[in-house]
C-alpha cells in the first residue's frame, strides 16, 4: 500500500549567529510512513522535533537533507497541500471575520464552488457546534470555540489527511472531549489523521499507531496494542522508558 505521508532521512538544522556555526540539529534522519485511514499519534517531550516535522510537512521549514512527501508529492510543491487539513496548536484567526466568512475565504483558496462551499460550511459548523454563532466576529469567541474554528477550517477542503498539532492543548475537559469526538468521527469516515500530542491518555484512546520522538530521532513506531504487549505496561511508562526517564517506583 502506498503511504499517504512519507519521510525519508529527514534532517533539519537551524543555524543562527553571524557566522552560522554550531547548527542546532532539530531532526536527525527521520524515516516514517503513515497509511490511509489510520490515526497516527506523534508523541515526544518538548523540543523533541514534533512541530519541526509538521513544519517541514507543511513547507514552513525547508529540510536540510532528506525528503518529505504527501500523497507521493514532494512537500516543496504547494500542490502537495491540496488534500490536507492542518490545525495549528494555538492560532488567533482573523478577528474581524465571522467563522462563516473565514471558512468561505479558505474555501475560495481551494477553489471550491460556491454551492458546495455553502453545503460544507453548514455541515462543518454543525460538526464543531458553532452554528449558533456563525455570524459573530471570531474575536468574541472563547479559546475552545477558536480551537473548533481551527478544526472547521482544517476540514473545509474535505481533506484526506489531517495534520493536527496538539489539538487539545489549553482546552478544558469538555473542550478536549469534543475535539476527541470529532477526531473519532473523522476516523469513522475513513480519514487519515496525523497528530502530535503530550496527552498520552488521549493518544492511547484514539490512535492506531504511535511514533515516539526524542531529541530529533524516532525511537519507536508501532501499534499501541503491540507496544503494550511488548513492554508489558501502559503507554505512559513505555514513553518514559523510551526517552530514558528513570521512575522512582
Amino acid at each position: 500500500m502506498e503511504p499517504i505521508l512519507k519521510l525519508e532521512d529527514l534532517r533539519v538544522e537551524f543555524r543562527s549567529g553571524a557566522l552560522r556555526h554550531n547548527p542546532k540539529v532539530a531532526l536527525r534522519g527521520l524515516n516514517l510512513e503513515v497509511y490511509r485511514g489510520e490515526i497516527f499519534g506523534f508523541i515526544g517531550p518538548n523540543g523533541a522535533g514534533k512541530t519541526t516535522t509538521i513544519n517541514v510537512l507543511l513547507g514552513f521549514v525547508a529540510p536540510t537533507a532528506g525528503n518529505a512527501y504527501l500523497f507521493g508529492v514532494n512537500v516543496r510543491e504547494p500542490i502537495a497541500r491540496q488534500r490536507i487539513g492542518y490545525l495549528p496548536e494555538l492560532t488567533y484567526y482573523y478577528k474581524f471575520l465571522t467563522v462563516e466568512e473565514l471558512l468561505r475565504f479558505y474555501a475560495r483558496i481551494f477553489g471550491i464552488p460556491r454551492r458546495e462551499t455553502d453545503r460544507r460550511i453548514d455541515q462543518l459548523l454543525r460538526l464543531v457546534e458553532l452554528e449558533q454563532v456563525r455570524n459573530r466576529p471570531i474575536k468574541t469567541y472563547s479559546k475552545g470555540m477558536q480551537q473548533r474554528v481551527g478544526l472547521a477550517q482544517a476540514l473545509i477542503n474535505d481533506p484526506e489527511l489531517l495534520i493536527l498539532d496538539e489539538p487539545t492543548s489549553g482546552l478544558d475537559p469538555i473542550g478536549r472531549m469534543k475535539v476527541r469526538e470529532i477526531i473519532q468521527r473523522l476516523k469513522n469516515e475513513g480519514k487519515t489523521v496525523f497528530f502530535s500530542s503530550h496527552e498520552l491518555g488521549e493518544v492511547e484512546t484514539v490512535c492506531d499507531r504511535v511514533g515516539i520522538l526524542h531529541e530529533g530521532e524516532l525511537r519507536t513506531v508501532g501499534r499501541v496494542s503491540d507496544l503494550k504487549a511488548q513492554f508489558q505496561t501502559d503507554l505512559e511508562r513505555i514513553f518514559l522508558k523510551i526517552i530514558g526517564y528513570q521512575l522512582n517506583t
Partner: protein
Amino acid sequence: MNKILAIAGVVIKELYRRKDFYVLFVLTALITLVMGSATFFNDPKIVRYLVEVCLLLIWVSAIAIAIGTAARQIPAECESRTIFPLLAKPVTRAHVILGKFLGCWFACGIALVAFYAFAAIVRGSREAYWPMLHYFQASWLHWMGLAVMIAMVILGSLIFSAPSANATICEIIIVGILLLGGHLDTVALRQPPPLDLITYTIYFFIPHLEWFDVRDILVHDQPLIKWWAVLGATAYAAAYTATFLFLAWLIFRRKPLNA
C-alpha cells in the same frame, strides 16, 4: 489568481471593518467643511484654497491608510499565527505577497474614490464646476503612486522587525521623495565630489513619487495632463511596484516560519 484575490478580499474586509478609514474620512470632511464655512471678504466664489486643503488632507490620509495597512499585514499574520493555516493550504508565499499587496491597493483605491468624490462635491457645490477628467487623472495617478508606496512598505515589513519602525522609516522616505525627489539633480550640481555622484545616483534610483502628486494641476485649473504621460507614469509605477514586490518575495521566500 483566485487565491490572490481571496487573500486580497480579507485585507479589504479588514480595512472597512477597522475605524482608521472612517476616522480619517470624517476628519478630512470635517476640516474641509470648517474651512469651507469661513468666508473671506464676503466672497462665496473663492474655492481654490478649499480644494487645496481638501486635497492635502486626502494625500495625508491616503498615505496614512496605505502605510498603516501595508506595514502590519505580514507581521500581523505572523504574530497572530494565521500565516500557518494559510500557508498550509495550497498557497505559495508569492500568493501571500501579491494578495496582501492587491488587498491594500484595492482598499486604498476604494478609499480614494470616496475621498475624491467628496472633493468633487465640495468644489462643485461652490462653483458648479465639474472637471471630471481632471479628477480621474489626479485620482488615477494618486492610486498608482500608492501602489509604489504599498509595495515599498510591504518590502519594509519583511526587513524591519517592528511594524512601527517600518511605518516610520517608510513615511520619512515617502515624504522625503515627495518634497525633494524632483530637486535632487539641482542639489547634486551644488555638491562637491563624490557627494554629487551619490546624490545623482539616488536621484536616478528612487521612485519619483512626486510625479503622481498632481494637486497643483487640479487646484489651479491647469490643462489636462497628456494621456501618454499618464500612461508612462502608470508603467513607471508598475515597474517600481514589481521591483519592490519581487524583492519582498526574495526575502519572504527564504524566511523560516516556525509554528
